[in-house]
């Protein structure tokens, strides 16, 4: 019986709520963008949708830890970290690349830089709750 990481307990509960907020807002933003003006900036909007999926997977897997979901949580938070760093850097270096904003633009400046901090907190929490042998 593999140990279940308590990622949804203690401070983890508040973390899950923060992830849920970002999942919903990224989902909302990308649906509006894709529904109203899909052709204008397909890369930015596709990226918004991708970010929404990443946040949604991270939220679910942190909220329901288990032998299958916890590794997925690691993967999702890892992708989130790479995403915010790569997209953040690209948008700062060449703003024309993404004509419209995404959650990760300018390292998430539009969201109080929370998107830049969140993956580090997520990874630290996953590390903190890992099974000790």
């Amino acid at each position, binding site marked *: 019986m593999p140990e279940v990481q308590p990622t949804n*307990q203690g*401070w983890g509960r508040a973390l*899950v709520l923060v992830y849920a*907020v970002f999942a919903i807002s990224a989902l*909302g933003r990308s649906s*509006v963008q894709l529904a109203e003006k899909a052709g204008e900036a397909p890369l930015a909007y596709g990226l918004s949708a991708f970010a929404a999926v990443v946040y949604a997977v991270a939220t679910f897997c942190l909220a329901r830890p288990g032998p299958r979901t916890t590794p997925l949580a690691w993967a999702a938070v890892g992708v989130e970290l790479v995403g915010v760093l790569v997209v953040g850097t690209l948008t700062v270096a060449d703003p024309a690349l993404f004509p419209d904003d995404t959650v990760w633009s300018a390292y998430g400046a539009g969201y109080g830089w929370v998107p830049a901090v969140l993956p580090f907190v997520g990874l630290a929490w996953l590390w903190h709750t890992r099974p000790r042998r």
Partner: protein
Amino acid sequence: MIDPLQTALIVVSLILAAVAAVQVAMDRPTGGLLLGIAALLELGLLAQAVIGIGQLVSGDRDVNGVVFVGYLLATLLFLPLATLWALGERSRGGTAVLVVAGLVLPVLVLRAQQVWTPVGA
């Protein structure tokens, strides 16, 4: 949209976050005081949603209706769901959820207001 209501909602949200933070520091699970504040806040959010949608339907304002109603409904659903999640753990970890909720709500209220008031209007 009526501004005094939004201001009151933001103030009560921040009070919720502050009281929850104090309770976290005191190592308390979510209790009656926090639930009372949350209930009061939810009533205000319900009023905001009803008034907002009413004004949208009756007026001919140049507002992105889908986004506006989306924010109003998200704001309305957010607090009950966050409260349920908070009550799922009877420890200060659960109470900490309400600190986050109280800090997120003002942003949602402000965003709904921004959508209602187009830039440059």
